[in-house]
Every structure is written in structure tokens, then in C-alpha cells.
């Protein structure tokens, strides 16, 4: 190390109540930190994120003229924004702050090894202090937000979100790949908990959406290119009928691409006979008159519903989840059809009628003498067909009996799974997916509607299997998120972007091909042309910096020097002051 700039670093070690201090000797960590290079102050506090902890940081920055702050507490994914704000309030640039993860990465996963955990904590703080000494202040940049929302998918969630945003006075572009809007719900003949058809429920919403001055509906259309960044997306929409493309300037995005009803091929003889159908297909049958059997048109007298078809199958990838709508939906459907049929059975694995008003359906079905019979998890009912006659055999758990039933039709409550083009959508918007195949929210509890792509929200069954009521709740929530961004008018963006050192660039174009965002181009005004980063397009991944054979690219806030300083601090620490080996 040639340059030796003196810094004034403050280290704050957090107890997090008993969470960290119960395993890690926080006093020892704080004492050790005092001996690290450039550290002028080190302490340990009960809850650093609490008001008193925050105040202490601000006070010490001013009192001791600290120019770097390290907090050793929880995951930076949790409180980095909090402490960045705190140091900023005390006049320090937010990029001069660094956080050590002593809770998720130390105390909680090494609970039975307090001494080794403390050693690890000391190493991590030493690494962070070394990094802090190398940090540089970066400008805080804001960008304007285009007051227009793109909604992808015009099902019940998409339409609800569109109306909410339009009512608030912002423009909405509602894109739907089908020729009509309304999605899955529009196809159903009754939607619980109401007695209305899906079309009846949606009709006023669709009418309003089609006529609203702030809403532009684009049917038969798909997004072909998604470019830009929060507040300033450049979206190309392609009409599948005319093949015409249009480029739109968009501020925020809500993805409401919905679900597909799982076609349960290979389960319970589905497709063997037209009399074996999914709940979605059953919902599309006309219920007004006497129901007729699809195969021969005879009246339906005996009906069997089977639950958890393609749901809650832990051994099958993409089918581990509970689809959440089916227990309540089959209770309602069974209760309704019981008025026209002599015998209605529900074969179930478990019953979860959890929502508002759903328990009432279960009771209604029971009151109408719908028969509930539980089958074991590992021995699903066996459906056979003999001369067009259906038969189900299963083991009833509660009576411990082998049972048999010959229904006229079998209705399979099939799972909600993501639509076929979900991978394409995920790639387009930079979204990740969870085990059930649906999109991951930014945080499962604290931020269920936003995603890791800033400015892109998810709602409805694009996020997880759920019923229409829940999808609408999501939609209004996501709309509020979009509106709050647009109402502010501008948003701060990360300054952690790539920078080219023109003198080192050898014009090899490696970085141009490495960048996934087309953020690097060649500056033709120079001879020879050198690489140039368009900062607004850079997402800060650093792939170009690693690929550059001339080390001509600096990743701000993640420089080679900052990273290697941490490596060195861990593996070849300097002898503590006053000691020495």
C-alpha cells in the first residue's frame, strides 16, 4: 500500500437485544475494533437502529468528526437504508457507510459456538473497517418519473389497478395478449363468494376501463422490448395481429400476468372421458338449467369433486404449493349443484376454507348434505372407467374404510400454475421466481407487491396462487405503490455504476458484449474509440469490470481496491497497535 490516508472511522456494534449479544461477545468485538487501523471510536449499544442508537451515531460523527461509519448489526438487506439515512442526517455522504452482518451471518447460524462466532465477528468488522477506509463519497442522483403506468395483463387484478391509477389522475396503458379483457374470471359462471357470473362482476369494471380518458387498452398485444430504468422505462409493445410495434415512455409497471389452470393430464383419468373435467371447465358449464353430462347429454345426478389436484404434492417441482382458492370454490360449487343432483361428494386431503365468508360455504355445503370424505396423502383416489361408466375407489381416513362411488361426472380442483410464457415475462422484467413458479416479491412479508426491479410491481396471481378477492386487494396495493412513486415526481437512483478510465481502455469491446443492458457503447469522438458507460442504463452488476482485460473499468462502491482490502484484512491483518508478532 503506497498511499496512507488517515481516516476517522467510528464502529458501532449492536447487541440487537439478545439476538447478537446472546452469542457474540459484543464488548470484545468493540474492544478489538478500537485497535483496527483508522478507527477512532468504537462502542456497543443495545439497539443501534432505535432512536437512541441513531442519535449516538449522529452525535459521535459531529463530536469526533468521524468521516466513515461502520455498524455491525443485522443484514444490510434489512437496515442499510436506515443507517445510510442516519449518517446523511449528520452530514456524511451515504456511501461512506458500511454494514457488518453479525446477526443473520454470525449469531443466528453459530448459536452453539460463541467463541468461534466472536472470532468471526471480529474478522468481519476488521474487513468492513478496511473497506470503509477505501470508500469514496458519491453524488446522490435523482431522476424524473414519467407519469404513466404500464399494466401487463388485463385480468381482474390488471383492470382494478388500472382504474385505481386512472382515478388518481395518472395515465395507464393496459396491455393484454388476448383479444378481450377480463382474463380467467370473465370465463367463469359463478365466482364465490357472490352468486354472480364472472362476466357480471367484471362488466362494470370493463366498461369503465374501456371508456376512461386516462386508460388506453391495447388488446392482442405483448411487450417485446423492455428497456430503461425506474421512472424512465422504454417499452416496445407489439400487436400480434398487425405486427405493428409502438414505443411507449413509461414511469412505473405493474405485472398482472395471472395464472393458468393446471391441466391435470395423468391424474384421475383426466381427458379419458369428457365427464372428467377441471373445476375451471366445470365453472364454464351453464348452470342455469339442469346440468347435462357432456358425454351423452343425460342429466347429472351424482357428482364427485376431488381436491388438491396438482397442489400440495411435495415431491413434484412446481406443485408443492397450496392453490388456496380450491377448498372454498369446491365447497360453493358443490353446495350449488347439490340443488340439482342427488348425491355430491367432496374427496379431500385437507380442507382450508380460510377466507372471509368461506367457512360459511363449507357449512352451507354440509347443511345441504354434501358428503365430505378424506383420503390419505399417500394413497390418492383411484379413478377407473368401464364402458363409459366412471368409478372412484379410495380409502376413507375417518372411517378407516375402503369406499367406492360411481359418479356421473368428476370435477378436479386443479392447481393454479403460472402461464406458459412466465419465463419469458420474468426475463423481460428481470424478475425472479419462487418454487411455485410465480414471481418473487421484494420481500415476502414487508414488500409483497414490489420487486427487486425498481419501479416494477406485481399483483394478483402473478405473485402467488390466490382467489379473486385477494387479487383485487393486491391490485389496489400495487396501484398505490405506483401512484406514490409518480406523485413524488422523482426518485433517487443508486450511484454505484461502472466508470471507464479512458487512458487504460484498449478498445477491445469485451465490456460491450459483457453488459446485459446495452449500457456500454464506444465513444467515437475519441481516436481510437474507447468504451463509454451510459450511467442511467447501468445497473451496477460489475460484470464489465470483471471482464475488462485492461482493468480500465471501475465499479463505484465495489472497486477492486475495496474488495481486495477486505480480503487482506481477513487473511493478512495488520498487527494490532501496541502488540505485534
Amino acid at each position, binding site marked *: 500500500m503506497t498511499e496512507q490516508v488517515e481516516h476517522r472511522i467510528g464502529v458501532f456494534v449492536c447487541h440487537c437485544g439478545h439476538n447478537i449479544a446472546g452469542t457474540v461477545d459484543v464488548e470484545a468485538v468493540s474492544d478489538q475494533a478500537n485497535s483496527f487501523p483508522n478507527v477512532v471510536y468504537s462502542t456497543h449499544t443495545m439497539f443501534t437502529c432505535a432512536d437512541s442508537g441513531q442519535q449516538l451515531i449522529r452525535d459521535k460523527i459531529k463530536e469526533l468528526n468521524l468521516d466513515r461509519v461502520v455498524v455491525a448489526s443485522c443484514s444490510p438487506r434489512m437496515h442499510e437504508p436506515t443507517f445510510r439515512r442516519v449518517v446523511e442526517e449528520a452530514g456524511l455522504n451515504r456511501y461512506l457507510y458500511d454494514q457488518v452482518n453479525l446477526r443473520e451471518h*454470525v449469531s443466528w447460524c453459530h448459536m452453539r459456538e460463541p467463541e468461534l462466532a466472536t472470532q468471526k465477528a471480529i474478522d468481519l468488522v476488521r474487513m468492513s473497517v478496511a473497506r470503509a477506509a477505501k470508500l469514496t463519497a458519491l453524488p446522490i442522483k435523482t431522476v424524473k418519473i414519467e407519469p404513466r403506468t404500464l399494466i401487463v395483463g388485463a385480468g381482474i387484478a390488471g383492470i382494478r389497478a388500472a382504474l385505481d391509477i386512472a382515478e388518481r389522475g395518472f395515465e395507464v396503458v393496459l396491455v393484454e395478449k388476448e383479444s378481450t379483457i377480463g382474463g380467467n374470471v370473465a370465463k367463469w359462471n359463478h365466482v364465490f363468494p357472490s352468486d354472480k357470473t364472472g362476466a357480471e362482476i367484471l362488466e362494470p369494471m370493463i366498461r369503465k376501463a374501456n371508456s376512461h380518458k386516462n386508460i388506453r387498452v391495447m388488446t392482442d398485444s405483448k411487450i417485446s422490448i423492455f428497456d430503461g430504468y425506474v421512472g424512465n422505462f422504454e417499452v416496445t409493445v407489439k400487436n400480434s395481429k398487425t405486427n405493428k410495434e409502438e414505443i411507449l415512455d413509461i414511469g412505473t409497471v405493474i405485472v398482472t400476468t395471472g395464472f393458468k389452470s393446471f391441466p391435470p393430464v395423468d391424474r384421475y383419468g383426466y381427458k379419458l372421458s369428457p365427464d372428467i373435467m377441471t373445476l375451471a371447465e366445470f365453472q364454464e358449464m351453464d348452470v342455469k338449467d339442469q346440468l347435462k353430462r357432456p358425454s351423452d347429454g343425460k342429466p347429472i345426478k351424482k357428482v364427485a369433486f376431488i381436491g388438491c389436484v396438482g397442489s400440495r404434492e411435495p415431491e413434484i417441482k412446481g406443485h408443492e404449493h397450496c392453490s388456496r382458492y380450491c377448498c372454498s370454490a369446491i365447497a360453493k360449487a358443490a353446495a350449488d349443484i347439490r340443488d340439482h343432483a342427488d348425491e355430491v361428494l367432496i374427496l379431500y386431503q385437507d380442507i382450508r376454507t380460510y377466507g372471509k365468508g368461506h367457512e360459511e360455504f363449507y357449512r352451507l355445503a354440509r347443511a345441504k348434505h354434501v358428503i365430505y370424505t378424506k383420503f390419505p396423502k399417500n394413497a390418492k383416489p383411484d379413478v377407473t372407467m368401464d364402458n363409459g361408466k366412471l368409478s372412484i375407489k379410495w380409502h376413507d381416513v375417518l372411517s378407516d374404510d375402503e369406499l367406492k362411488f360411481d359418479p356421473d361426472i368428476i370435477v378436479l380442483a386443479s392447481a393454479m400454475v403460472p402461464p406458459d410464457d412466465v419465463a419469458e415475462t420474468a426475463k423481460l422484467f428481470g424478475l425472479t421466481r419462487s418454487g411455485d413458479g410465480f414471481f418473487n416479491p421484494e420481500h415476502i412479508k414487508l414488500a409483497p407487491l414490489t420487486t427487486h426491479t425498481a419501479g416494477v410491481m406485481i399483483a394478483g396471481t402473478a405473485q402467488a396462487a390466490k382467489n379473486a378477492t385477494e387479487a383485487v386487494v393486491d391490485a389496489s396495493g400495487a396501484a398505490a405503490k405506483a401512484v406514490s412513486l409518480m406523485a413524488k415526481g422523482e426518485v433517487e437512483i443508486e450511484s454505484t455504476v461502472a466508470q471507464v478510465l479512458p487512458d487504460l481502455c484498449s478498445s477491445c469491446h469485451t465490456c460491450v458484449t459483457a453488459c446485459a443492458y446495452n449500457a456500454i457503447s464506444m465513444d467515437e469522438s475519441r481516436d481510437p474509440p474507447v468504451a463509454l458507460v451510459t450511467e442511467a442504463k447501468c445497473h451496477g452488476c*460489475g*460484470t464489465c469490470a470483471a471482464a475488462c482485460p485492461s482493468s480500465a473499468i471501475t465499479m463505484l462502491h465495489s472497486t477492486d481496491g475495496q474488495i481486495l482490502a477486505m480480503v487482506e484484512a481477513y487473511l493478512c491483518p495488520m498487527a494490532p497497535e501496541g502488540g505485534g508478532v
Partner: protein
Amino acid sequence: MVTATEQQTVEEQWEPRILAYCCNWCSYAGADLAGTSRIQYPTNARILRVNCTGRINVEFILAALDMGADGVLVSGCHPGDCHYTSGNLKLQARWALMERSIEQSGVNPKRVRLQWASASEAQIFADGVRTLINQVKELGPIEREWK
């Protein structure tokens, strides 16, 4: 003068030092979840957060081994799940060459492990740390062996 017994004790007490480069969006979050889920794993690894595994240069690995790390873990998003769409694929494309460089520097490539662990795969992350530690323990403390 170190006696044979003392030497043996030192070797028995030796615990490998592991540096773990984790991407912010998948593996770092997976390690967070391991903590939140109270999954217990050995303390040997020190996690260094990078935005994306695509940020990782072979120099970062060679420098760590040079400075005495007994093993280096690189953990990122699954192919296709990269927060930056393809940074992990760029790393994967470089990986064969990186392993070759490590070998040429006289280090057994078994001291380096590349793994994919998503934000929900806490157990896979913890198991990966354990796997590398066991691999490194079999090899013993870091040393150069030019062939």
C-alpha cells in the same frame, strides 16, 4: 523445537479459513435466510458481498489464496435467475479458465467451489459451505504444489 505430538495437536486444531464471495440478490440473501431459519453451520467462512457473481474476477480468487485462504467459495443465483439477467452466466463462462489459472498457480482447484443458491435455498447454501470445508480439510492447510 516442536515435538511430533505438538505438531499433531496443531494439525488437529487447524481450522480452514474460507472466503465466500456471495452475490447480493440470491446467495447473500440465502445466507440471511439460513440465519433467520437458525440453520447451524461451521464458522469458517467469511462472507464478502458483491452485487453479482459476474463481478468476480479471477484475481479476487488468486489474491485470497495468495494471502493464505484455505478455500474460496463463490455462490450466486441459479442460471436463468440472475438479478442482472446473465452475470452468473458470464462467470460460469469464465469458470473453466479460472480453475485452470488456479491450478497453474499451484493450488488444487478443489479448494475453490462454485455453487448456485437462491434466496430461498438457505439449506443449500449452508450445505455448500460445509461441503467446501470438508473438501479443504481433506487437502490440509493451503500449500503450493507445482506439477
